[in-house]
């Protein structure tokens, strides 16, 4: 009896796990699965690719560079002088009407919003409306944390400081009459940024929160005067400010400026640009883009093409495999 027990104690457990005999599924990628699989994937990809490609093609885009490097550029005059407010007009005509909501982007190139030092140069607590941080901004904001008089800068940091400050007005030219095209500036930033991540200090009068602080050096107006007309678009929850604060991934980027809800009918237009933002010092370019969007977002042919290419590659490979197997495999199986 004792012996038996001892034997049982020493004998390894006879379970599927300890004996490495767990029931297992042993998938084999056989030609019978792979070839139809490839065909299916290929066809699906080609389908998606065609849809993407057609959609992308149907999106209309108007793009104008207004940096003013070339002599004939309308904004050439603004580049040379050091005038703080320079206005130039960009005239263009729309031959085929852009339907639906038209999105108006501004674009910058060779502008590195993803510099490491630049990208951390902000104080999220400040921007969350915590006035404690108004007096002592985070060190990451340096050198834009205090001005030369040791006054704290609010909002601090390079990102806020370098906020894009060109402004645009679009006129529809009908003969001599110029009608202002109405812009819609709501909902151009992420919903969560506007509602949760950024907050104004909860003080009756926004201006009072900014006592003993100075505006960012580069700014014309303090933060509480960004949009005096609409208190829900002022201070840190100003939509333009939020759009700017979501930093672009690549040095050539575009950011949403306004929406034109009625679309752009055929006709002549004039874009009045308040040219403030210097880019020539770092070889940058500025542009404006009018575009409508589809379910896939803005126009991007890469995705459609990639799907088409890969879809057809799959189909091609399945044909090759079929030939290979017809030659070598099938006779063997008989």
């Amino acid at each position, binding site marked *: 009896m004792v012996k038996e027990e001892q034997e049982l104690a020493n004998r390894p457990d006879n379970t599927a796990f300890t004996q490495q005999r767990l029931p297992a599924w042993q998938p084999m990628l056989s030609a019978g699965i792979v070839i139809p699989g490839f065909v299916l*994937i290929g066809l699906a990809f080609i389908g998606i690719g065609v849809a993407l490609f057609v959609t992308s093609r149907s999106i209309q885009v108007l793009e104008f560079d207004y940096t003013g490097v070339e002599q004939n550029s309308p904004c050439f005059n603004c580049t040379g002088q050091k005038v703080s407010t320079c206005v130039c007009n960009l005239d263009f005509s729309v031959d085929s009407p852009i339907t639906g909501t038209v999105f108006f982007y501004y674009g910058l190139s060779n502008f590195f919003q993803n*510099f490491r030092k630049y990208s951390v140069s902000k104080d999220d607590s400040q921007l969350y409306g915590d006035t404690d941080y108004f007096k002592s901004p985070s060190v*990451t904001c340096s050198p834009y944390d205090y001005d030369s008089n040791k006054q704290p800068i609010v909002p601090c940091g390079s990102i806020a400081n370098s906020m894009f400050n060109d402004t645009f007005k679009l006129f529809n030219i009908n003969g001599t009459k110029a009608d202002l095209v109405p812009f819609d500036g709501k909902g151009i930033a992420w919903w969560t940024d506007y509602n949760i991540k950024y907050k104004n200090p909860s003080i009756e009068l926004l201006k009072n929160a900014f006592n003993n602080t100075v505006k960012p050096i580069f700014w014309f107006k303090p933060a509480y005067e960004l949009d005096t007309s609409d208190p829900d678009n002022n201070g840190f929850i100003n939509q333009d400010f939020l759009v700017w604060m979501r930093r672009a991934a690549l040095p050539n980027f575009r950011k949403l400026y306004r929406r034109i809800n009625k679309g752009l009918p055929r006709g002549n237009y004039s874009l009045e640009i308040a040219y403030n933002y210097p880019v020539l010092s770092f070889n940058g370019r500025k542009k404006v883009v009018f575009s409508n*969007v589809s379910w896939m977002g803005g126009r991007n042919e890469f995705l459609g093409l990639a799907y088409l290419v890969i879809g057809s590659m799959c189909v091609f490979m399945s044909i090759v495999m079929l030939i290979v197997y017809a030659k070598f495999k099938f006779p063997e199986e008989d």
Partner: protein
Amino acid sequence: MLRRRLNRLLGGDERRVDSRTIYVGHRSSSPSEAFIPPKFCDNRIVSSKYTVWNFLPKNLFEQFRRIANFYFLIIFLVQVIVDTPTSPVTSGLPLFFVITVTAIKQGYEDWLRHKADYEVNKYPVTVLEEGRKIRKESEKIKVGDVVEVEEDETFPCDLILLQSTRDDDTCFVTTASLDGESNHKTHYTVPDTEKDLDSLNATIECEQPQPDLYKFVGRMHIYKNEQEPAVRSLGPENLLLKGATLKNTQKIYGVAVYTGMETKMALNYQGKSQKRSAVEKSINAFLLVYLCILVSKALVCTTLKYVWQSKPGQDEPWYNEKTQREKDTNLYLKMFTDFLSFMVLFNFIIPVSMYVTVEMQKFLGSFFITWDKDFFDPEIKEGALVNTSDLNEELGQVEYVFTDKTGTLTQNNMEFIECCIDGFQYKYRDANSELDGLCVTDGPVNKVQQKAGREREELFLRALCLCHTVQVKEPTEQNQRDGLDQVDSFGVDSEVPHSPQEQTGFIASSPDEVALVKGAMRYGFTFLGLESKTMKILTRSNDVEMYELLHVLNFDPVRRRMSVIVRSKSGDTLLFCKGADSSIFPRVRQEEVERIRMNVERNATEGYRTLCVAYKYLSAEEYAQADAGLREARLSLQDREEKLITVYNQVETGMSLIGATAVEDRLQEEAAETMEALQGAGIKVWVLTGDKMETAKSTCYACRLFQRNTELLELTVRTLEDGGRRREERMHELLLEYHKKAVQDAPPVKGGVTRTWSSATQDYGFIIDGATLSMVLNPSSESNSSRYKNLFLQICQNCTSVLCCRMAPLQKAQIVKMVKNSKGSPITLSIGDGANDVSMILEAHVGIGIKGKEGRQAVRNSDYALPKLKHLKKLLLAHGHLYYVRIAHLVQYFFYKNLCFILPQFLYQFFCGYSQQPLYDAAYLTMYNICFTSMPILAYSLLEQHICMEVLLDNSTLYRDIAKNAMLRWGPFLYWTLLGVFHGLLFFFGVRYLFSNPALQDNGQVFGNWSYGTIVFTVLVFTVTLKLALDTRHWTWINHFVIWGSLAFYMFFSFFWGGIIWPFLRQQRLYFVFANMLSSVSAWLVIILLILLSLLPEILLVVFRKPRGPHARQKKPVQSSVGGNQSPRSSARPLLMRTFSDESNTII
């Protein structure tokens, strides 16, 4: 004060000299001298490494001595000191995790040791102090204390046995906890010590503590009232070791000689040298490559950064002005910090978690060996034992197997087969009735042709009965006293076919001796036991003869013989000697040799173990001389062994030969099948044995290591003596001849091709013996040394099997070492069961101990221990193969997944002005290796069976597919690296082109840089996990759970991490980034596209490799039906193949 210091000084001196002096009971040798007790360590056992106070610093120090941990510490420190892109948390947290887990594990182990130490140290013992018995805690025992130990207690320290309650001044001991030998060993009191221990005045002089359990030299001076002190020699038979248990003896008294950490047990606890596996070496090589990649990436980025910044407007655009401090910093210092920052940014390419995963895999994986019920042996009721888990994968890489013969290839279950007395052959037939009849009759046993004279017969049988160290096993303690009566009654009642003695059995260090004693019993001479130096034997005529045992000249493998000197009742002093023929023949009269030699050689070729028996009468003077010599040698403290051997050799001369015995040692179960499977797997099997050539050769034939058409190349003393010239010249000549035959004339060897193709060529087997081997290794002129060695090695490498016979234990290790260090440094495995195999087990890459009959020393020193030889097949072909594939895949996969993790981050530098901007969020950087991708590969590396076990066992040739580290060579490494690069490029640029228009949502909003990183990261996590899923051939529910589980966890974590404003974070970078990404159709499409595109080539590769795959798979059933595990060689001989395939079919 001064005195104490002086004492300490003396104590220190004492330790340096060769011996220590112990005052028994702390009484000084002469009353006149002031007694200064020498200082020895106390009896506290400290096996723990740490105390509460030093745990943290000491443990941290030990952990950071590992290169990898140190590297991560440096990275962490750089992150803390220098302003780097990622927060110190990203590398600090994983490091902290690893360090903490290891520290907790080691702390727990140490706590267990503390507990065990405490139990041992506080165990109450009884010490005799000035006539009184005092209870003390074990740790308070001092050297010189007289300790009382009762039955079934373990000895608290190493004791010299002074007194036993048994009449014959012996005590019995088991050393099961020391070396696993559970038999009772007899230990003797120091002869002629006083019965009254209180008045005993003696000193013991003995050697300094040394770890060998079986060696002890010392002497005892006993002072008796101003007389000349009496001197007694002390040997291992007087020493009771700490850890051993007292058995069958009521009480003993002993004096402590070694205490605490100086006991032999404690000295033996010191760890063995660590063996490192070849995989670990590969990992280190790959690590070096990745370190180079890391450094070069950082260098490239630093260089480009400064080139790029030299263009106007790029260094400090107006929107990103530098702080004053940055402007003031020295340019070169800036460059250096930039370099460090890049290093930190890319450091994840060498993951801290790989070490953890590899170690977990090894640790957990080794359980499958202990759990395997196929390794369970019902006879010994034990399964396999894993002593180290570092070498699991090495089992799949073995190229050379060195096996011991006795106990490994053979069962070590000896059976007396026949004997030869004066040249007449006596064969024992296994038929009980016949035996009984013959036993009772006075005639010779089974007369074959003629019989020798009766006197010679009886002399021979007496010799067998007397010349051994066998003990009669005492059945139970109560029966001890009436043991004699029992035997007596048996003596009278001779009809009983099997005496209780035979059933209860004999105990001996070697099974040969038992076989011989039992053999003699069958012929009517029964050994009744040894009692107070008197051996009793029962003769055929039922007389009990008494012999006084004067001396035992112990067996040792160098002399290869043992002798006893006994005095018969009639007063004759006789020496009986038995031993190997080679060691006996030169010591007997030559005219007697020839008659016996023929028989011995015939027996040897039949595969029996032979021993020759000789005797001589010693005259009174001769005995006196021998006795004096032996006593003197036994008392000497230095070179005792050598001196003893010299005396032995002097005594054992001029004997006359009586006869020889043949003992059969049966082959282990499935020994032949196992050897065949090993050879089929491309493993070369070498047999290293101390046995004689003929016996070993026949075993080799029986195991099918040599086959009928194998051409044997023999390089032994016999072949060397043919020419009559100098041996070495002849040896050189033979070596050249064999070399020409086996190496030069053989078709050119090329890697794996010949392995399978060698079927057409002639097989060679090589035989060498110990004497010749030492000539090869140590030739007379130094210049030839390497030449002989090379020739020898080259021949051996071209032979299918090599037999080395007449090997001393050290020579076995020498051979293993030679092969291990030869070209290509092949992986060697040694398997053995005895103490003589320990050296080769320790020397080989993998040492395997068989839980055999020759004690547990081999098992203790091995890396793995198996109950039987036949288990080796599964251990290597199934477990080894799978472990290797698993760990190789684990390593390659780990490097791959970190390369394609970091490559996008590297590429991103080209798009962010080389500013060290990380692409992924810190949480992702930290969690990638810890949580998102670690579990699937761990599950894979524990459970994968790319080919199921049965197929692996049936097709030993599959083992060749992974030979020579096939999956961790530079080829596969390059493939994985390129795959990683391809994936990394794809992930980055795929998303890059998508972001050429960052408006990816239908509301026209744009995505920022964290969205970019998150898309890349999502593609990455899915791709590497699915890549592993593609490689998994064995999907258990665990694999499913872990693979789909970690993907689900990634999704869940991302939602969670981005769904809350975390108060402890300074920047809420990822807030709603993941959710926003999922709301974009384009992001979905690009993720699906990139995952599929990354995996397509992989699928294609699998499919196009296929035509070979199904081939092999289709052939498998055919092959296994033809012959389970035939080697390719046998296909050349259809007839032979057919015969043994039939055999193996019946067996399987």
